[in-house]
């Protein structure tokens, strides 16, 4: 047991939870503004790729980080623009952008690195002690600059939503777009700005994912965007709770890795992965989260 409940597990939990939490908090930003965003997966992928590509080309990890964030912002805001300005259905747009990100990153892998599976490895940020176990791993996970930025973004988001003009406007647009418009807001613009913030936060997750692996792998987001969506729903569209849910998912996954190493890869342990999805379905079916969603989600202002 001590092997499972070790500092390594804590470090692993943290490491695994960061991309989930970033995507989930990004999802909260998008959906609190009233735009359905099932394209988090695609934002994770694109930003992961962009960060690796730029970091590889320039040899600079910060440049990679900014590139990742930039691409995340653009892709997410583009989703907002498609939904709000060209009136494309948000689900269709989300699916198409997921597909686009998946295909375009693979295509770019081939174009840039002539590989169908992964990029060359990059340095990433080198902070903290080396070593793959215990406190060394934990320190490195905690002081990883991307993780620190992610933590700041995750912690700041509830405050931003609650205490700033942008946050207030975002919430108003998500809850009652007609009233927001009557109060003089440009609902479409506010939503696109919220989507840009969403993209930036979510992109931190993508960058973390890539820098953590020190390379980009095709399809490396591996459904994290969808788990994040589950966390958003479970949390009742609240950033803090969504992040906590993601931490729980991270712990489960870390434990599962630990269990597998203990019991020589019992396949039954993979069923633990079902948990976030089943929990989401149960919570919704039992009506625990009733009324928690922004009331104006997916709705344009009337007249």
């Amino acid at each position, binding site marked *: 047991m001590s092997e499972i409940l070790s500092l390594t597990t804590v470090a692993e939990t943290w490491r695994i939870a960061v991309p989930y939490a970033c995507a989930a908090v990004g999802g909260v930003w998008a*959906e609190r503004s009233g735009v*359905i965003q*099932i394209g988090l997966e695609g934002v994770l992928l694109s930003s992961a790729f962009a960060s690796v590509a730029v970091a590889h080309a320039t040899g600079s990890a910060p440049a990679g980080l900014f590139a990742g964030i930039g691409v995340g912002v653009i892709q997410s805001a583009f989703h907002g623009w*498609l939904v709000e300005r*060209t*009136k*494309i*259905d*948000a*689900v*269709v*747009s989300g*699916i*198409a*952008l*997921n*597909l*686009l990100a*998946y*295909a*375009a990153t*693979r*295509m770019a*892998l*081939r*174009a840039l690195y002539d590989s169908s599976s992964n990029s060359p490895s990059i340095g990433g940020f080198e902070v903290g002690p080396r070593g793959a176990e215990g406190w060394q791993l934990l320190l490195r996970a905690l002081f990883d600059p991307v993780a620190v930025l992610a933590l700041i973004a995750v912690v700041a988001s509830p405050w931003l939503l609650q205490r700033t003009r942008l946050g207030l406007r975002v919430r108003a647009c998500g809850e*009652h777009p*007609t*009233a927001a418009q009557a109060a003089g807001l440009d609902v479409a613009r506010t939503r696109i700005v919220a989507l840009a913030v969403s993209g930036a936060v979510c992109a931190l997750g993508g960058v973390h994912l890539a820098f953590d692996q020190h390379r980009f792998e095709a399809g490396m987001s591996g*459904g994290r965007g*969808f*788990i994040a*969506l*589950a966390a958003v*729903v479970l949390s009742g569209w609240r950033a803090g709770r969504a992040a906590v849910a993601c931490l729980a998912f991270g712990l489960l996954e870390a434990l599962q890795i630990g269990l597998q190493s203990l019991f020589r890869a019992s*396949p*039954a342990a*993979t*069923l633990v*992965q*079902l948990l976030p*999805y*089943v929990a*989401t*379905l149960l919570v*919704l*079916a039992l*009506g625990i*989260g*009733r*009324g*928690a*969603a*922004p*009331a*104006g*989600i*997916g*709705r344009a202002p*009337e007249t």
Partner: protein
Amino acid sequence: MFAAAGALLVFNLVVAAFGYAPRDTLGAAFAGTWGTAYGTGQVLFKATPLLLTGLAFHVALRCGLFNIGTEGQLALGALVAGWLGPSVGAAFPPLLAVPLVVGASVTTAAALGALAGFMRARLGVHEIISGIMLNRCVDVFLPWVLVVGLGATALRTDDIGAGARLPGLEVWVPAFSGSAVSVAFPGAVVVTGVVYLWLERSVAGREMRWVGLSPTACGSQGVDVARRRIQAMVLSGGLAGLVCAGTVLGYKGYYELGLGAGAGFSGIAVAMVGRSGPVALVLAALAFGTLAQAGLSINAQVPKEAMSVLEAVVILLVAAAAGVTGGDGATRATPGDGAEKGDGDGAESGAAPLARTRPVPSERVP
């Protein structure tokens, strides 16, 4: 037209970016698809699942629902087909074995659709969220079943018995020799016609369409909206379950992890592009089948994913064109009860969130 022009532009840009002459690449793409009988057969093979998933998505959309769960439904169905195929195919003649195996797949997929439909119609859980969650559940569940349940080592089932195989089209059209197209393609075309006819003529089909157009009017006039929604999801799921006919029974002869993956999402594109009728749907499936096959044939020059990029662009362009022109009722069936028009009171009826929509009985005794 707008979408086709846009797609062609993107195609040229991509190809040029890879340093090839667009015209040459286009030539290679044509040669690998409609240019030869083999290529044509491959296109038909690729189009088969797309037609079925497109039809599946279309049926649900006509009832105002987004069956985003086709991906998981077809995978689980195909797994069941691959699991039953070896024994049933060995024990029974084709006339019995094929319907049994396909039927089992259809039933499984339909049950998954029914679950999403029930959760939407009776519990108010939006089908998009439940669809995504069920898809992910299937993703996790499949390898586990293959390894633990079936004891497979290579993430595939055993070869299915001869009785459960579907013959290739080459039996009748020798020119298709070597290509993977089977009788599943003409079968899918027939199914498309039948389903369209059923939607137009049958009581259930017509009421489903009506529910998609105006759930409020249907509810007020005594149409059982909840039941029709569940039925639409069952039918949609069942159609996704038919996909195994082309992949497992007609081509591979076994189920392996990832077989048919992506067809569910591409089906959405097919349904969007081919929404104006059965012929349009078949043509859209052929078009996207062509894209998929063309991607393979130009893979040496331009990665086949270029075609997926094109697909995404086409989806967006078609959706944008529909959005700009107002589109038709079916494509505007937005999440939530967007089709429930005339809701005057924003505070009460405005609450149609993604995760929970009000169950059909709109007024309940507290």
